[in-house]
């Protein structure tokens, strides 16, 4: 069974941009290890005669025809953004921040 370390949990936290306190990292580590244990149980039960399941819903993807539909009004969209310029969204500086 895979066991999570606190460092791994902190790394995951940084990947999803969630600041974790020491207590939170500890708690999440324990939670994740419970989940990991549950997955191990499922794997033990899933023997060779059980086909792999990619999705819990036994459906195939519906496909739509390649026909353009109405698009959103640009001014309306940009009005939702914190900042815009020349018809474009403004993103804060990408490099050089934290």
């Amino acid at each position, binding site marked *: 069974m895979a066991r999570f370390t606190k460092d791994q949990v902190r790394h995951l936290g940084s990947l999803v941009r969630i600041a974790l306190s020491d207590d939170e990292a500890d708690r999440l580590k324990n939670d994740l290890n419970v989940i990991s244990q549950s997955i191990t149980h499922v794997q033990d039960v899933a023997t060779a005669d059980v086909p792999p399941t990619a999705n819990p819903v036994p459906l195939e993807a*519906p*496909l*739509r025809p*390649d026909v*353009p539909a109405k*698009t959103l009004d*640009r001014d309306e969209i940009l009005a939702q953004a914190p900042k815009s310029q020349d018809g*474009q969204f403004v993103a804060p500086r990408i490099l050089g921040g934290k």
Partner: protein
Amino acid sequence: MAEKLMSFEEAIKRYDPVWGLETHVELNTKTKLFCPAPYSFGGEPNTELTPVSLGLPGSLPVLNKQAIDDAIRLGLALHCHINEWSQWSRKNYFYPDMPRDYQISQDDKPLNGEGYLDVELDDGSTFRVPILRAHVEDDAGKNTHIGGAAGRIEGAAYSLIDYNRAGVPLVEIVTQPVTGTGAKAAEIAGAYVRMLRDIARALGVSEGRLEQGNMRADVNVSLRESPDAPLGTRSETKNVNSFRGIEKTIIYEIRRQATILSQGGEILQETRNWDESTQTTANGRLKSDANDYRYFPDPDLVQVHTTQEHIDELKATLPEMPLHRRHRLQKEWGLDDRQMHAILNAGALDLIDQTVQAGASADGARKWWLGEISRVANEQKLALDELPVTPDDVAELEQMIADGKLNDRLAKKTIAGVLAGEGTPSEVADAHGYKVVEAGSELGSIIDKAFADNPDVVEKLKSGNMKPMGVIIGAVMRATRGQADAKAVSAEVIKKIRG
């Protein structure tokens, strides 16, 4: 560093190069992969968006059937195994070019599995490039960095984002590590990407214009001591968007890595960027955490089911493949390899083929497209198909020559008019009065005048010495401003002398 690099020849002597390409081909569907927003290159920013392209909460992706069919046809052309079930995964990353903060891609269950592509090299030999997979994913938006030098992200104060391109379908064709190419590594990689472009165009699934971002490649290169040794650490040069850039990246990386290895150094697994201005690659970011994208199955999408029946239907729609067509046309046109390469290098194959189909001879079509028209294209730094001349124009011009309406000189003036945007060949010839002076009374009187001006020449001709014939023909040509047919003039002169 550039001046201290090991020579390519030396690098190849000491190391065995292994490379791989991840080529993105943008599909030219009318709408995006997961929503019915249209997309056009160079459209007004942020006008081609739906709630799905913007990743708005509550919006759900619905797959474009055409994109899936196009991708399968591309997979079939690359001899890929088409998987009956394929699945969508989220590739998570933080960068403002994708409003959802993840790209929808395919991870362990791609639409197209293993395949291969045979490419032909300049020496006529064939090399088989093994393909690992060709999966489908959506493209990201476009960032414009403001405040830094030359639009670079480094030093920029902020960035503008146009999300129009976000969600446009891409097929990413991933090769296996390609071994055994040695000194031909770059040539084979270049031939492979050109062939991919030709196939995408033949299938009609993409315009395949690298300069417009329809195609771009990530170039992986590593070196090892010998072909028996395990693969070395690779560098990945991202988003190279020209054929020459891809070839030069491979050559540069082979030299750079050989230099480091020969000095006992270590190759870092990193992403790099090709810099056209310095003709070098520069390091981007370290790729030590390769799994940081945290792929997981997209809970908003279920699997795509592709039946064998549907695959067979699509297979039946595949056109003749470019390599096959190339061989067929070369044979039909009676060309040697060198002549055929000249056509391919000029990007004139389709144009000549269409000109022949419009009724011109292969020789005639080739002469115009590779001659006068290529010259003007080079002068104006344009592709042949960007000039205001069509295969139909060239076929018409050839017909006018065959009908004796134009001679070579007038035909050249006519095509110059067509290339200047003055209209079709007949329109240009009419407008300028380009017309061969036909045999008959008009030509007869012009010849009579030439006789009268050159009595000594006429004496010689009458005595059977035909050598000074050129003097008379020259005089007639001058008098008609080149609009007479030299053969007709010559026949008429002989008739008059003997008459």
